């Protein structure tokens, strides 16, 4: 056996497990989703009827699907912007300054991220409770006892923002830790020389910190898209189940409803395909738009 062949064999043996598992659990199911989306099928019987692109035609006329799509996009935007801003702010403060209780804050911010989404739903349903919830009680303190109750989970104009707040709260810690990790790699000398040149903290943040951790921020933007799509489904499922009257339906919860409750598995898979294509495309666009020359330090 010559050296090259040995090397090839070695590499093959190393990557084979990962490739087999990846094919088995990722590629084949994904292909199946695409395939089943072309069928009319309830999910159980052997009577799958091939309907071509019928499911997609119905989908593009389905007003409820558009509603859930809008909600999902709104959530991606509304969750990403404040989370990035707050996570960067907290990460900047916690990594640049030394003050008492620094570790305490680090832990407190990170805790929501290790909580199960079920616990988060329970916490927020208590916070949003119309009569005994902390939020309405606080508002009552400032506005006097006769303030009108705000139905955080009942008012169709507000409820989507209530979900957004919960998701922002749970996401901040995770991204903060990621930004802190890359901020720790920024050499202190850059700040020192900027300080000598008379730059204040805000200038330093925007001129030094932000450009130097830009690659990291770009990566997290993709994470935002994926995690918002997934977590919004989980939280909505537990907290409101898409209600009241579809006001918080996101596209994955709509997919679930169609695939199972409405016995239209094929149609559900068509929604899955659209979500798949959408998230891929969005991630690609975001990646393209945020592309900068990487800065070396």
């Amino acid at each position, binding site marked *: 056996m010559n050296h090259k062949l040995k090397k090839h064999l070695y590499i093959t*043996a190393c990557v084979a497990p990962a490739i087999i*598992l990846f094919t088995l659990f990722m590629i084949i199911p994904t292909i199946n989703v695409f395939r089943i989306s072309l069928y009319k099928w*309830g999910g159980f*019987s052997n009577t799958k009827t091939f309907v071509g692109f019928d499911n997609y035609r119905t989908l593009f006329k389905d007003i409820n699907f558009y509603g859930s799509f809008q909600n999902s996009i709104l959530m991606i935007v509304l969750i990403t912007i404040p989370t990035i801003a707050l996570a960067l702010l907290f990460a900047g403060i916690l990594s640049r300054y030394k003050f008492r209780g620094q570790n305490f804050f680090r832990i407190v911010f990170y805790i929501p991220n290790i909580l199960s989404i079920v616990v988060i*739903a329970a916490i927020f349903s208590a916070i949003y*409770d119309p009569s005994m919830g902390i939020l309405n009680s606080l508002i009552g303190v400032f506005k006097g006892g006769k303030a009108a109750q705000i139905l955080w989970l009942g008012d169709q104009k507000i409820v989507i923002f209530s979900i957004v707040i919960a998701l922002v709260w749970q996401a901040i810690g995770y991204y903060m830790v990621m930004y802190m990790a890359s901020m720790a790699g920024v050499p202190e000398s850059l700040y020192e020389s900027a300080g000598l040149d008379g730059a204040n903290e805000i200038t330093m943040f925007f001129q030094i910190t932000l450009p130097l951790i830009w690659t990291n921020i770009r990566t997290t933007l993709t994470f935002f898209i994926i995690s918002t799509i997934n977590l919004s489904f989980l939280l909505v499922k537990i907290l409101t*189940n898409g209600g*009241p009257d579809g006001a918080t339906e996101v596209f994955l919860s709509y997919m679930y409803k169609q695939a199972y409750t409405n016995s239209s598995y094929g149609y559900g898979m068509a929604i899955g395909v659209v979500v798949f294509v959408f998230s891929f495309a969005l991630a690609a666009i975001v990646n393209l738009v945020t592309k900068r020359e990487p800065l070396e330090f």
Partner: protein
Amino acid sequence: MKKALSVILAVSMVSSMLVGCGNTAETNTEKTAKEETAKGDTAEEQVLKVAAFEGGYGADMWAEVCKAFEASHEGVKIELQIDKKIEDVISPSMKAGEYPDVIHLATGREAALTETLTKENGLEPLTDVLDMTVPGEDVKVKDKIVPGFVDTLATNPYGDGVTYYAPMFYSPCGLFYNAGLLKEKGWEVPTTWDGMWELGEKAKAEGIALFTYPTTGYFDAFMFALISSAGGSETFDKAMSYDDGIWESADLTKVFDICGKLAAFTESTTVANANDQNFTKNQQLILDNKAIFCPNGTWLPGEMKDAPRADGFEWGFTALPAVNNGGAGSSFCWFEQMWIPAAAENKDMAKEFIAYMYSDEAAAIFAKSNAVQPIAGVSENLEGDNKMFYSVYDNGATAVMGGFQATAPVEGVSMKDTLFGTVDSVVSGDKTVADWQKAVEEVSDKLRDAVQ
């Protein structure tokens, strides 16, 4: 040396994975071989796979009834699967082609397993079970079941007279209230909707809302009873089978109007809590004297048994007031269903099991957990609150039974979401009753074309 070690490690990683797969296969064959020998030893032993939904009545009664069946049927072994989310437990193996022989799971659940199998024609007809003799007795099944229970779309989902679901534990649905509060205030339980609105105004003056509901899902029993009261059983059947224009007919307009008016009398926080996470907070409103009526089924007192309550609280239960002047009130009779998948292996024994469900022996076991079978005479032995709940039909209310006719799945169209889910929007003022009614008729039009 280092390289050799890496190669060994990599190879062992790959092989361990393959061995892992191989092992399972081996165990499976071993298992089948063992099973076969077991079968050989006791040639007649038959395994009956029963899957049951664990509802409010608990799991013990199922274990007990299966044991009793095994005792009365020699050579039969029951493999019982029971879970609060039984569809999650059984559907993976069902997708792989392994079906339980008998399934006790009602329609109307979120995963809609029963509906999906119905829509896909995956059920075994049970009409011959009705002609079977109840095991251990000399009565036919159909003669033991209370008349009317196997004549509706709730047991004959395709509307063709063929029974596919066996009716199991039933529960009258109606309005629950605090009888103590009404007594204290000197208010009567209204028998007409006009009386209802009067009571609503009186209660409003005292800061009590007339109405609340756990989630919009509970409007099925509520609206079905109203529809029947408004237009009789014929209108009800037409509505359930998506008759053209029925949802915009004069009778059903009355139903929508009542719901619309009731929306104005609904407790203000109801919509915010009308979800799976918080619905008990709405039920709590009744216990706290913040709302008077709440539509529900007889499981409500059990569900709220540990909840705090106002002094002098006493459960009250009434049928829905009559829609037409001089008409009868009505109460929807909800029941759970048992069925056999068409792909089941042991259909004959499964049918025997269903027939056994109507034996006095089985009914007595179920009754211990307050689960009431639709067998003549069973409800007479009830005690306490339960006696009051089940006597609702003795007091002149019409029993309404049934449900929507099965259709082929229609993508993106859900009668449940449109007819019941919209109630939240009507209460919060986001949609008008007229829009709601129009949307329901549109959905009905779409589903009519898909009736099987």
